[in-house]
């Protein structure tokens, strides 16, 4: 069973998940990494679940079109959208605070998802 190490706000959490697990699905049914993992729309449109992959990234598939569209140069910084990933190997992730996410990850044209485990959002700039 893949081991998931999750860092957030200076804390580290660890848990095991079944093979081929989507962590946003797990959080959606209140299982680890709930309640620590921030997520929103669950459809790759808001970027709230973005995490930096610290280790295990070599086992992940190439970023899909939604990740490329939303994360842009953050992909080069090692970020992925967790809602688009199915985990089959050990992985170590770090998620930014809401404030850092809003300042560095959230694209201006991302939807303002307010899912059950989402961060509060301020006003967004209008899409170009």
């Amino acid at each position, binding site marked *: 069973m893949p081991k998931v190490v999750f860092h957030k706000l200076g804390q580290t959490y660890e848990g095991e998940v079944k093979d081929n697990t989507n962590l946003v*699905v797990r959080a959606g*049914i209140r299982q680890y990494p709930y309640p620590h993992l921030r997520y929103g729309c669950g*459809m*790759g449109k808001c970027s709230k679940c973005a995490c930096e992959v610290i280790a295990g990234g070599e086992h992940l598939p190439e970023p899909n079109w939604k990740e490329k569209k939303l994360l842009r140069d953050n992909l080069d910084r090692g970020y992925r959208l967790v809602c688009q990933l199915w985990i089959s190997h050990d992985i170590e992730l770090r998620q930014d605070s809401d404030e850092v996410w809003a300042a560095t990850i959230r694209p201006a044209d991302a939807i303002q998802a307010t*899912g*059950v485990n989402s961060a509060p959002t301020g006003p967004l700039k209008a899409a170009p």
Partner: protein
Amino acid sequence: MSSLMNQDDFRTALESAIQGKSATRSPFSIAWASGTLTRAHLARWAENHYHYVGPFADYLAYIYARTPDHMTDAKDFLLANMYEEEIGGDRHTDLLIRFAEACGTTRERVIDPDNMSPTTRGLQSWCYTVAMREDPVIAVAGLVVGLESQVPSIYRKQTPTLRDKYKFTDEEVEFFDLHIVSDEIHGERGYQIVLEHANTPELQQKCLKICEIGAQMRLLYTTALYHDYVEQDLPLQRIEAVAA
């Protein structure tokens, strides 16, 4: 008289009840997977599918209202499913309409209930009936576990086909993409509710039965889509030959 199953055995039994009449066995689904449908066929599918999945939050709202107050976790899961279906991100039906437009039909045609087949109307009516009349736990088993939880596995097979064989763009097939994630959450929440609250042998048996009926209804719906819109262009023998 059946005895009370533990949660693992009960889940396996639920999955088996659903698979028994899986909609993936219908001629429409086989033709879809083999790439032999036309965009016009897919447009008719979208015009019907809208009236089946469009009211999903309404179905859940009836169940929510009848779920006892002490089942707080179950109510919260249902509310989260409703919210995500409608306003958590892009409205799911808007993405279905985008796909429909890429198939050559219009928003007006999709939302017009006169364009659904009698069988689709029957499936929609069955969903409302279950939501309004069945024990809430049985209703969740029928609609969320029996119907909605099937969707990720179906769309996971269909999405690559839509891109590779039908040549739709990523954005045109986003309706199918999103369901791989969000319906997986919704289906799992349904399982959690049913596994926890179907706590007598009688309730468990009724949940299994309604899953079986739900899968039959979905198979009936997709089979009718084939007969109503596809059969005249694609006889069964041709589909079977391509799929073989």
